[in-house]
């Protein structure tokens, strides 16, 4: 009987460890069981991405519709290229949608906001969003403001 309780408690211990790992995976790091949600890739070119990071949210009307998957510099045009994965269920974004880099709150993270356009054609895998709006960089705003002040 002594051996039995010992084995049961060891089993319960291992199960508790496994349960804790699942808690960390699902609740803390937000892995979903159907992890690879079907998505299609769209790119957008920004003059300045200003602190946008990979895995940042892509939103429309405040609702998350995708994630930023990659960011790199176009070596010929010197613009930042942002690749984003948009979930397949949102397959009716018109081809002239606008993408802008926004900030959540004053100190918050950067994310991409998409505003839908008017065309009947929809964005598909590999398309590019042409109409973009760069991130606001505080230093630029301040220098513009000062420049205007001195002109007056």
């Amino acid at each position, binding site marked *: 009987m002594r*051996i039995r309780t010992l084995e049961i*408690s*060891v089993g319960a211990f291992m199960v*508790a460890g496994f349960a804790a*790992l699942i808690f*960390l*995976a699902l609740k*803390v*790091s937000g892995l979903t069981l159907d992890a690879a949600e079907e998505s299609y890739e769209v790119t957008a070119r920004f003059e300045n991405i200003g602190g946008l990071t990979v895995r940042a949210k892509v939103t429309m009307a405040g609702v998350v519709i995708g994630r930023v998957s990659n960011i790199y510099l176009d070596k010929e045009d010197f613009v930042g290229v942002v690749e984003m994965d948009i979930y397949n269920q949102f397959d009716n974004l018109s081809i002239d949608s606008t993408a802008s880099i926004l900030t959540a709150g*004053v100190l918050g993270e950067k994310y991409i906001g998409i505003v839908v356009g008017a065309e009947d054609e929809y964005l598909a895998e590999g398309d590019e969003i042409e109409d973009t709006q760069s991130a606001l960089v505080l230093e630029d705003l301040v220098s513009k403001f000062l420049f205007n002040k001195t002109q007056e």
Partner: protein
Amino acid sequence: MVIQVLRRVGSKGVSFLESFGASGMFLFQSLVAVPNIRNNFPLLVKQIYAVGVMSLVIIMVSGLFIGMVLALQGYNILTRYGSEQALGQLVSLTLLRELGPVVAALLFAGRAGSALTAEIGLMKSTEQIAGLEMIGVDPLRRVIAPRFWAGIICMPVLAIIFSSVGIWGASLVGVDWLGVYSGSFWANMQDSVQFSDDVLNGVIKSIAFGFVITWIAVFQGYDAVPTSEGIGQATTRTVVYASLAILGLDFILTAVMFGDL
């Protein structure tokens, strides 16, 4: 005078290297063996009970309090900048990357490592180990190997439980008591924690710590002077060496994992 100092340093260094080499040989001999699962599995289960299950309470209680303290302190600082939603992110990254593995390992060294050393040291001083040898049983395989594997298996499990309980404690304080909005608490956490980077790296760290702690503990026990004084010294050495090794190793692992080295 100078010569004498040099000589002392030299002999210290040689004896350090000697014991390091001896412990390496010892580890090699106790692990490199054809595993005999049917006979050794009950031994392993018994050691997992002694090393892991018995450490569970201290790990869970300290995890809970560390999570709660982190939430309190983090809230006080973050609320100054009006960004207390980032509390979940702060607590979970701190626990998963550093505090979970490290504090669990320090507690494990104190709770289980010292017990391992004392047990094996006492076996040696009461000549049980010599007795095993006399009846033709290899004490390294019979006594050391199951304890060693139990340590490696238990340490990551304990660290994971520590982090989970800590995060739960933080949500208890942050969300239920201080009133951080629970949606942004969990969502911010899920945005910033990456399973493959943060959770798995923490697990890898704790496996490394488990290896080092049990190695030091069983070697110090096996190498102890078989007197009551010697066993006391060996136990102290286990806790001191294991704690230092954990902290040093943690810096190296962090630098490799998160420091872009």
